């Protein structure tokens, strides 16, 4: 599998989260199988997420990633990085707020980048962007409980 943290970040491993910390980039190749399997696994059967003929007839270039998956991939990106930082999986995600932009189509690469925006009152707010060649597919924030 592709892990989001192929580059090491030794200076911060184990350290408390601090504003300005960067999350190593995660490059995820989008395939038809990914678009279809993720949409169905979220119980989203809208045809534009699995039927290219219908998606194109509706004016889309191809099928595209559904919103529940965009949220789930943001969750994965952040929690795998926190796992690398802390050595455990105990960090709780409190919220994920995303704005949707360019669609993510098969054969795009979806590149996640992020950083710690703030740490206040026991909650860290992480800023995350997932970009495709057309522009930002998703931008948003993830709130995690600081331990």
């Amino acid at each position: 599998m592709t892990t989001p943290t192929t580059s090491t970040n030794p200076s911060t491993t184990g350290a408390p989260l601090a504003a300005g910390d960067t999350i190593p980039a995660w490059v995820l190749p989008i395939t038809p199988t990914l678009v279809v399997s993720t949409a169905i696994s979220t119980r989203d059967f809208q045809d534009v997420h699995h039927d290219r003929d219908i998606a194109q007839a509706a004016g889309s270039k191809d099928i595209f990633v559904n919103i529940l998956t965009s949220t789930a991939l943001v969750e994965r990106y952040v929690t795998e990085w926190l796992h690398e930082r802390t050595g455990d999986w105990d960090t709780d995600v409190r919220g994920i707020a995303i704005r949707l932009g360019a669609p993510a189509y098969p054969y795009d690469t979806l590149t996640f980048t992020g950083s710690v925006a703030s740490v206040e009152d026991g909650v860290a707010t992480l800023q995350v962007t997932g970009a495709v060649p057309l522009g930002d597919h998703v931008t948003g924030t993830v709130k995690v409980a600081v331990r």
Partner: protein
Amino acid sequence: MNQPSAAHERIMAEAERIQALGEAAEREARDPVNQPTINNWLEAMGNTNPRWKAGEAPPSMAQVWTMYGLGGKPPADDPLHGMMKVLTDEGFTAVLGTNCEQEYRRTLTVGEQVRVTTALESVVGPKRTGMGEGYFVTSRNTWYVDGADGDAEVVATMLFRVLKFVPKGAAS
């Protein structure tokens, strides 16, 4: 704005009526939170977090449990779909998800039965956007688990915003 004001007034009157319904269209999840559904999601997402094999469900699956499923349809009193129909009937035929903001009070555990309500939060427009002229429709979902003592516990919430619009180039 070139939308006739009569249409705007009809839209906003319907918005006010539907907003006044508050939390409505309550639905039960088809299945309790269960491991096979979690496993399918983990495989598709490439998520290897071992917590999701040990009795907890991933936070962002909250919405998955109450999805309509294949062929499922929203109930007639669903505030979001009711508002969408109002706008479709006024010519705002296209739809685009723009924002999704989920908050998780705790992780769900395998075996829990979840239910969800939908409320219409706001309708804002008409706005000219890159996609065409339309209205931003924001709904709020609240997911509950009922405790043994009968108390309803909020486990997750979601603000979901769509742009309901007349595609550029479409005849108005």
